[in-house]
């Protein structure tokens, strides 16, 4: 009976693994396509701006990451990644804050501009007015980062599933030494 349960669990795990592998293949194809689009856009930007205008010479001396990862452990040993973008501000509320009458005379309080803690957009390394192709390249690579996090999560799940599968196969061999 225990062997039957083990076999059912093995089958379920195997199906899940095959599904994960199929999903991984699909996401990989999309990531590769996005990265290729990004290279093409970078090449167009380089054509517009000059060969040496898009490269390591333009990297800032101080960089703050706009994109980070949140790693969470769904099960023991299984890590999942999620892309988090910094520098996203909530939209401001436009309109009168109070319902009372406003004073038309008197010193008006000017809102103190809040210093933004958002990291600087890497597009600014390459100039103030950058060609549209450079923005397209940025969009392609940003999509690629989201896909990279999904693929990394899938890879971890496949590795985790593989170790679980090996463990279950060992248990099955111990229960049914003759079947192997």
């Amino acid at each position: 009976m225990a062997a039957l349960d083990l076999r059912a669990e093995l089958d379920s795990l195997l199906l899940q693994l095959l599904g994960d592998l199929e999903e991984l293949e699909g996401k990989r194809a999309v990531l590769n396509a996005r990265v290729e689009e990004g290279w093409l856009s970078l090449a167009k930007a380089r054509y517009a701006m000059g060969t040496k205008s898009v490269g390591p010479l333009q990297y800032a001396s101080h960089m703050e990451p706009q994109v980070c990862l949140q790693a969470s452990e769904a099960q023991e040993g299984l890590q999942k990644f999620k892309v988090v973008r910094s520098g996203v501000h909530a939209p401001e509320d436009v309109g009168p804050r109070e319902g009372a009458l406003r004073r038309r005379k008197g010193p008006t309080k000017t809102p103190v501009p809040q210093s933004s803690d958002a990291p600087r957009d890497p597009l600014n390394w390459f100039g103030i007015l950058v060609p549209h192709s450079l923005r397209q390249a940025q969009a392609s690579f940003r999509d690629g980062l989201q896909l990279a996090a999904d693929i990394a999560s899938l890879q971890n799940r496949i590795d985790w599933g593989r170790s679980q599968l090996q463990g279950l196969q060992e248990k099955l061999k111990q229960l049914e030494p003759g079947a192997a």
Partner: protein
Amino acid sequence: MAGRGKLIAVIGDEDTVTGFLLGGIGELNKNRHPNFLVVEKDTTINEIEDTFRSLGSVSGSVAEANPSQHDPPLWDEIDSWQFLNRDDIGIILINQYIAEMVRHALDAHQQSIPAVLEIPSKEHPYDAAKDSILRRARGMFTAEDLR
């Protein structure tokens, strides 16, 4: 840093690194070592391996052809620059043709964090047969297991 999350590191050719830095993953300040490495044609395999495990170049983001011209960094400093040993890196993106050069180091890496992701390059399309993760997955099943 604990509240900010983990970083994405990248080891690749100029276009790959520039593209992902445009995406916003780059980190570089006076106190921290960069989380990226631009591999040029003069970059040696040892330098790439050193970056993957322990960064050998003192000057920063672009691996130089002759790092021996600089004073060798202290081993403690090298340990603190290792992509694999940094606890603030979640994913390492690496061009597959570069990964092939340091395949032994990649295959030896078994931890789930940082996750290593092989990506194609302009001159070398992605080959699933060479990917470390997929090679391990392919070795999961034998004929006896499927009886």
